[in-house]
C-alpha cells in the first residue's frame, strides 16, 4: 500500500527537494516511522517527545489529524497526507 505525502518547502531539504513522496503504514505513526527511515531526520521535525509537534499541522485528505486520533489515525491505501507548518507567532 502506498500513501502520498505532501512535503512543505521548509522540510524539502530532507526529501531532496521533492514536493511529494510515497510512504507506507497503517497509522500516521507508522507512516512517520517509514518516512524517517527513507528521509533521515524528517521524523524529528514532526515529533517531539513522541507526540506531534504543536506547530506542525498534518492532514489526512482534508481532515486535521488532531480530529482523527493524532498519531493513531488510521491510514488507508490511496489516502493523501499533507504536512504544513502552522502560520503563527506572537
Amino acid at each position: 500500500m502506498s500513501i502520498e505525502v505532501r512535503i512543505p518547502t521548509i522540510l524539502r531539504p530532507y526529501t531532496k527537494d521533492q514536493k511529494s513522496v510515497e510512504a507506507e503504514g497503517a497509522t500516521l505513526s507508522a507512516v512517520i516511522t517509514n518516512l524517517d527511515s527513507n528521509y533521515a531526520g524528517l521524523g524529528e521535525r514532526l515529533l517531539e517527545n513522541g507526540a506531534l509537534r504543536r506547530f506542525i499541522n498534518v492532514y489526512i485528505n482534508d481532515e486535521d489529524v488532531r480530529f482523527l486520533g493524532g498519531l493513531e489515525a488510521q491510514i488507508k491505501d490511496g489516502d493523501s497526507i499533507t504536512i504544513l507548518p502552522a502560520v503563527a507567532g506572537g
Partner: protein
Amino acid sequence: MSLEISREFVDAILEQSRAEYPDECCGVILGPAGSGKALRHKPMINAAHSPTFYEFDPKDLLALYREADDNDEEIVIIYHSHTETEAYPSRTDIAYAGEPGAHYVLVSTRKEIAPSTEFRSFRIIDGVVTEEPVTIVG
C-alpha cells in the same frame, strides 16, 4: 533582497490592523509561483483572537495552500500586526517561521507612535532574521 508592494495593500493591511485592534491581525499576499510578486491580498482570521499571538486556523491554512496550488500561486508575504510593540519579529515569530521563501511583514500600530505606523519586512530563515528594504509603489 527587498520587498516591492503596492500602496493599496499597505493601506489595506494597516486598516485591517486597526479594525482588529487590540487583537493581532494577519494574512498573506500571493503571487504567481516563482515570480516573487505580491499581487493578491488575502486577509486571514487570527484563530487565536489574541493581542499577543496569531495563528491561521488549521482548516483555513489547508484551504489556503490548496487554493494557491490550484491557482499556481505562492505565498509571497505573510504579515501580522503588533499592537503594543515594535514591528520586529518576536521570539515566537522566529521560532514558528515556517516559510523560508516568504517575506515576513510586520506592522505596528502601538499608541506611542500614533498616528504614524511602522511597516517592515524581514526574511526569517533557520532562526536568523534579516530586515530588507521595502519599496511602496503606486
